[in-house]
């Protein structure tokens, strides 16, 4: 038996994650480490995409670009998003 599962096994967890209100999640900034509820980030929407930045250091936490065929989600500025288990 291998010591890992294939990516399909993450589907359930991911669908749970994105089914919840992410704005209530606890987010840690990968730039300064500030850890706050995501709703406290600064959201820039007058732009070609949606940008959330850390209220502490302005690091880009999240980018969402919606094209006619795809949605790009960049979370590299987040160390983690923490959501309670339901």
């Amino acid at each position, binding site marked *: 038996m291998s010591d890992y599962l294939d990516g399909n096994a993450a589907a359930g967890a991911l669908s749970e994650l994105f089914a919840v209100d992410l704005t209530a999640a606890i987010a840690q900034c990968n730039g300064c480490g500030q850890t706050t509820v995501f709703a406290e980030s600064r959201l*820039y929407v*007058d*732009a*070609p*995409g949606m940008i959330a930045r850390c209220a502490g250091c*302005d690091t*880009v936490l999240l980018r969402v670009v919606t*094209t006619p065929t795809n949605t790009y989600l960049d979370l590299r500025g987040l160390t983690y998003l923490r959501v309670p288990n339901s």
Partner: protein
Amino acid sequence: MGIVSPGFTGRRGGGTDLPPGQYLTHEFPVLSAGPTPHILTDHWEFTVTTETGEKYKWDWAALTALPAEEITKDIHCVTRWSKLQTTWKGVSLDTLLADVETGADFAMAHSYGGYTTNLPLEDLLDGQSWIAYEYDGEPLHAEHGGPARLLVPHLYFWKSAKWVRGLVLSDSEDLGFWETAGYHEYGDPWKEQRYAGD
């Protein structure tokens, strides 16, 4: 798939020659992916870094001492507004790069505040781009990219980096802020190159 192609809407802005999918505005919308940097000209600096690491620098006095051009160009934002006959003053990249020794094919524009955008170097040359520091006869306001922004009007306006602080030249093409998030690596408005793969 719709019956009408996206390009069909290109002239809905009032019959002027607009790229496909654009509408005409007389405003100057402010788009920004972050807080507006307020850079004093005393602290402003523009640096060109070549593929060998050599750096060429200009401060504000050096930039504004160079021959400047009056520029009148149409501009086209990927969010679909176009503004015609905008007037700028700035220094041609031909002037700034005249003595820069490089064989690079690509440039990454870097801005105060961290924004980046990538362009082929040849699109910055031959009278196609400027470091602009006046708009409509006034010093360029910070909200529009002042004290100085890149102006590359033949490409979608996200390529005209606000608050520009330098160019990094390289032999390979890296992608900038919007280009890494689904926007087209080149961005020709007349070919409607909005998104990756267009």
